[in-house]
Every structure is written in C-alpha cells, then in structure tokens.
C-alpha cells in the first residue's frame, strides 16, 4: 500500500514538472561562456542551491512565506545545461501560478545571478523578460558642458584678438598722425639744418651777392 502511495506521489510530482507543463519555466545556463576556465561543474549540489534561491524568491511574495526547498521541482536536466522547474504549493498537488513565480524571480534576479556568478544573458529564464538597466542620465548632458567650455574659450580669444587689432590700428593712426604733425612743424620752422627760419628772410628783396656778379662780360652773351 505504502509503495503504491509512494509511487503515486512520485508520479504526480513527475507530472507536475515536465517540459511545457503548466506553470513550468525553462532555465538555460551558459557557465563555460561566462567563466571560461573557472567554470564549475553543474551537479546536484548546484541544483540544490538553485532550488534554494527559487524558494527564497518565493518567500518574499506575500502569502507564500512558507515555501520550502522541497516545493521546488527540477526535471529534464540536459548537458546544455538546461532544465525545467515548477514551484508547488504546500500540499504538493498543484503548481503555483506562473505570474507569481515570474514576478518573484524578476524581483530577485540580480541576487540569483550573483550566486551563480552569471548575468541575465548567461542565466536565462525563458519567458521571463529581464528588466534592462536604464542608462544613467545626468541632469545636464555632458556634451553641453564641454561645448560651453570650448565656446567660452573661443569667444574670449576672438574678443582679445579683435581688441588687440583695434588697439594696433589706433596706435598706427596715432603714429601716422604724429608723423604728419612733425612734418607740419618742420615746414613751419624752416630748415633746421641751417637754423635760419625762412620767414625771417625777406624773399622779395633779396641780397645780391656781389661775388658772383662782377662784370657784365662774365655773363654769357645771348
């Protein structure tokens, strides 16, 4: 009788966990891809750890705080490594609804990944989409900060160049006007070399230098 009961229980349990069974999820691990040489072997102890993590996740769900490791059933473990799992209720007759299991796994995905040194791509729960991490959005986009810096530098450099150009031109104008002034002064003062101001010379009368006009014969006859 006991054997029959035991046989029934295992049969029922076997039926609860089957590929494509109701409320069953397939899990796929790619340990060698993730860890390379440091890959560990997937054995029954790792399976026990997995069942413990799933039970832990279910305990976080309200009304499911009494989930035990024995309620999590694994089956069809392949070489890949992939397997199916279901979570049963305390009576071990029914499986828990897929939505509850899905939300529980999603909330604790990070911890499950870390336990096995894997990530969302190497520890896949098919049919449970992973929440992608949003990209960090700084309040001010970085490119505007750098743009602002370079823009200010260019404006400052341009202003400096323009101002120095204006100052240079003003100095040139001043110099050329100074040169003009000096030339005017020179003309008014007369030939400085002789230090005889021309104004003092009586241009109308003139002095005849007798040394050059002695005799009329010296003048060339026309």
């Amino acid at each position, binding site marked *: 009788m006991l054997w029959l009961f035991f046989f029934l229980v295992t049969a029922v349990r076997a039926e609860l966990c089957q590929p494509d069974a109701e409320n069953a999820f397939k899990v*796929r*691990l*790619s*340990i*060698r*891809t993730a860890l390379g040489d440091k*890959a560990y072997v997937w054995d029954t102890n790792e399976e026990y750890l997995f069942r413990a993590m799933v039970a832990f996740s279910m305990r976080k769900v309200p009304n499911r705080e009494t989930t035990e490791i024995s309620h999590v059933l694994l089956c069809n473990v*392949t*070489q*890949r*490594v*992939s397997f199916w799992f279901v979570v049963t209720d305390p009576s071990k007759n029914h499986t828990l609804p897929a939505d509850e299991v899905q939300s529980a796994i999603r909330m604790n995905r990070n911890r499950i990944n870390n336990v096995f040194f894997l990530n969302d791509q190497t520890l896949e729960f098919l049919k449970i*989409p992973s*929440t*992608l991490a*949003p*990209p960090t959005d700084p309040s001010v986009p*970085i*490119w*505007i900060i*750098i*743009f602002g810096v*370079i*823009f200010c530098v*260019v*404006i400052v*450099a*341009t202003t400096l*160049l*323009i101002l120095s*150009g204006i100052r240079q*031109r003003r100095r040139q104008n001043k110099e050329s006007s100074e040169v003009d002034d000096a030339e005017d002064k020179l003309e008014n003062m007369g030939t400085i070399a002789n230090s005889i101001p021309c104004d003092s010379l009586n241009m109308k009368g003139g002095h005849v230098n007798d040394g050059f006009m002695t005799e009329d014969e010296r003048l060339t006859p026309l």
Partner: protein
Amino acid sequence: MEKTRAQWGNPLQFVFACISYAVGLGNVWRFPYLCQMYGGGSFLIPYFIMLIVEGMPLLYLELAVGQRMRQGSIGAWRTISPYLGGVGVASVVVSFFLATYYNIINAWGFWYLFNSFQDPLPWSVCPLNGNRTGYEEECEKASSTQYFWYRKTLNISPSIQDSGAVQWEPALCLILAWMMVYLCILRGTEKVGKVAYFTALLPYCVLIIYLVRGLTLHGATNGLMYMFTPKVEQLANPKAWIDAATQIFFSLGLGFGTLIAFASYNEPSNNCQKHTIIVSIVNSATSIFSSVVTFSIYGFKATFNYENCLNKVILLLTNSFDLEDGFLTASNLEQVKGYLASTYPSKYSEVLPLLQNCSLEAELDTAVQGTGLAFIVYTEAIKNMEVSQLWSVLYFFMLLMLGVGSMLGNTAAVLTPLTDSEVLSSHLPKEAISGLLCLVNCAVGLLFTMEAGSYWFDIFNDYAVTLSLLLIVLVETLAVCYVYGLRRFGAELEAMTSSTLSWYWKVMWACVSPLLMVGLFLFYLSDYILSGTLQYQAWDATQGRLVTKDYPTYALAVIGLLVASSTMCIPLVALGTYITQRLQKGASFPLA
C-alpha cells in the same frame, strides 16, 4: 605709392597652409573607398599617372598665377584679361557654396567629439523602449551607430519634402564651428599660416597613433590583404581612370581660388615649383597612408562582425539541440552541422532558415564613403576597441583638424578678393568683413541643421561644385596659355623666380591637361543627362535602412540653379565688360 601686400611669416607657413587645405576629409573618406572599388593596389597606377599628368601641372599653374598677379582670384584673372574676371567671380561663388555646406561636417564632428566624453559611448548602446523590456524599435532594426547618426544627430525626416524644424544641437555646433573659423581668419589670410602649423601637423600625429593601434587590432591583416590584393582587370575599366582623375582634381582643391589667394601672399621670388611637388606628393601620400589605417580598421570591424555572426549561429544550434555549452566552436561548426543534419533531420530543417550565412568577404565588401564611413562605420569599429573614449576623441579631433584646415582655405578664397577690393576695405576693417562673411554663411548653413538638412547637404555635395570646377579650371588653363600667352607667362615666371621653366610644364599646360579637362567635363555632362531623373537615398525609420527616392521638381530646380549661378558668371562678366568698354569708347568719341 602702392600699399605693400602682406606676406606669410615664412615660406614654411605657405607650404603648411596649402597642405592643410589640400589634405582634407576627402583623403580620409573618399580615397579608401575608391581603392576598394577599383581593385586595391592596382588603383594606385591610374592615380599616380593622373597625379603627374593632371594634378601637378594644374596646381603649379594656380600657384604661379597667384604669385605673379599678387591678387585674389577676381583681380588676378582680370589682370590676365579684362573679359575673364568672370572666372574669378565663378571661383568665389563656388567657394561660397562650398564654405556654406562644408562647415556642417565640422559641426557634426564637434557633436561627436563632445559626446565622446561619456561612458558608455552613446552610439554603442541602443536606448530602451517605453516599458524597459527591450530596445527601441528603430535601433533594433538598424544598428546602434546608425540610430545615433540618423536619429540623435540628424533627426532625419523620411524625405526631402518634410523639412521639419531646425535642430538646436547641430545648430549650436554649427555656430561654434563658424566661430572657430572666424577666430582663425579674422586677422587676414596671411595670418592663417600660424594656425596651419596645427591643422597640418596634428592630423598626422593622430594618423600615426591610429596606424599603430590599427595594425595591432585583431583581424586588421584581413582588411589590409583585401585592400592590397591587386585586381589588375580593373585597370581596363574606364571608370577607374575617370575616378582617379576626379579624385586628384578635387583632392588638391583646384579652381576654388584658394591656391591663388594663398600664393598671392608669397614673395615674388618664391620657388613655387618646388612647393607644388611637395604639396601634391604629401597630399597623395596622406591618402595612401590614411587608407592603410582605414583598411586595418575595416578588417577589425569585419572580423569582429564575422565572429559575432558565427557566435550567434553557435548559440542558436546549442540552444535548439541542447548541446553542451562550449562544445561547438568555429572550427568544428561545419562538421557538427553535418552531423546534426543527418541525425535530427526534421528539427534541423526547422532551424535551418534561421541560420545566417556568415562570410568574412561579405563583411569586407561593404564599401562605404563619405559621412557614412566617418560617422557610422568608424564609430562602430571604435566602440569595440578598449578605452574607446580615447580613440573616439582622437579620431574626431583629427577629423576636425582636417575639416577646419580645408574650411580656412575656402573662406580665404572668398575673403581675399573682398579685402582686395578698394570699395569694401576702405569702409570696413578686415575683422568686420570676415565677421560679416562668417555670419552670412552661418545663417545659410542653418538650413542644413533642419530635419531634411542632410538631404540638402547631399545635393550641395554632389552637384554644387563638380561641373562648375571642371569648367573653371579648363577656362583658367586656356586663358593662361592662349589668351595671356604661354610664352609671355613663362618668361615672366622665369624672371620672377629666376629659374627656368621646364618644357614638361609647358606641354602639360598647353595640350594634355586641357584635353583631360574637356574629357572629364563631357563625361560628367553626358552622365547627368543620360541618367534621367536624379535620385537620392532617404532613411526609412520603420525599416531601419536607406531607400531610394526621386528628387522633387523644386530640388532639381535648385540643383540647376547651383550649377548655373557659378558657370554663367564667366560669360556674363565677359559680356558685361565688353558692353561697358563699348559704352566707354562711345562716350569718349565726342570728346576727341
């Protein structure tokens, strides 16, 4: 007494200014594409032949004209013949068009440069969709680099008819780009020499760093071998020769009036023949150098994508058949596929349509040129390198140096005739003239920051300068040789530089180069006419790829206007001068 013309600080500044003008974005993003299209190493043969036959003679001609006439393009050509002032005006108009649309590339460069200071790089990850369970649809269909370029940078509209609004981010970057140009050019063209030290030398530093990094990347040798394996049958393809001639022509920047403007600030005794050879050889060497860098990066990216594709296939097979993780590798893939096909035929046939055919050649074959190469392909390669922020900053800094160097030359081409004219320079100081020019160009350039701006950019890039330049340079060569007189010009040149003019230059100027120009011009004209309606590539956000569309009529009208406004200057000014002279002669007769 004639006001003495300003001069370069020293002859080296002139050489650097020319190099920084000639070595521009075309060397980095057009030449590698041509090399790949026309059979790698064998493209170098038509390239060098065209350099010697067309590039060097025309470059020497422009530098000699500028040095001899000592004026900007309008004044120089008016001196050659009063009827040919229109050639100078056409050069200025073409340079104005180029200056308007070229600086938007620098604006994009600034945008990418400023965005490179983030971890992770914004074009390496797709943004999340509304409920954070996946990535945005457009980004999934295309790639993250394409999404960043088309959506975040350009915010491109589906067609040229939907103009959209001005995007403030590229507009700010454009304003900054113009302020940079103004800063460098406000003291006059001859002061550009000081800036030219940086804009000419810094890109080489970055290229050398990239060369070392590129050659040490995994898979770089694949790209290099693909590039340099010569496909000699391409030599028989006439398009290869035509594209080689076109590339040399536009790469040296002939016909814009920049070279004349730069050379006009030379001392008359300057040996411009030596400088011609230096500038043209440096320009070509830079093209080859940068294509080595580009192809090592291509090889890295292609290998990376190929290995990714293989990994996806391996993952798919491993998951479908529950094989042990790590069992399938690239080396035993084919074997295992065969085994699986025979052992589980039904399941294998289910999986087969999902398996992609991964091919390294197909990845390498994606030849890209232009903005697509710089902003999509290169960024994709950079995001996979270690310390990608550093490489990104270096790369866009180099692009900016190249772009700003060419921009300074273009703006100088427009500025020098303006500052030479008595009318303007007596009323306004140099700083105000250059400021006004930059302001006008910036305002017009804001059109390219609209949502459809990239389509207008493509119009300007493809049609604004090609035909006009060919015509301008053809008229220039004929003018110097036959209107001014080759013998007279040669004698003046020899007297000025006190060195004999080799017969080689004379033959090239008189016969070979004009014939080449005529051939190119006729080819392009017939190409445009025969192709019927012109088409363009529009970005389809729903499909995540480019689609071909026809230009609307008003866009075709703009294209026609662009070409006409520069080419018509030549006959119109000639006609105007003729009429003015007849009127003057008619007016002077009654006085006699």
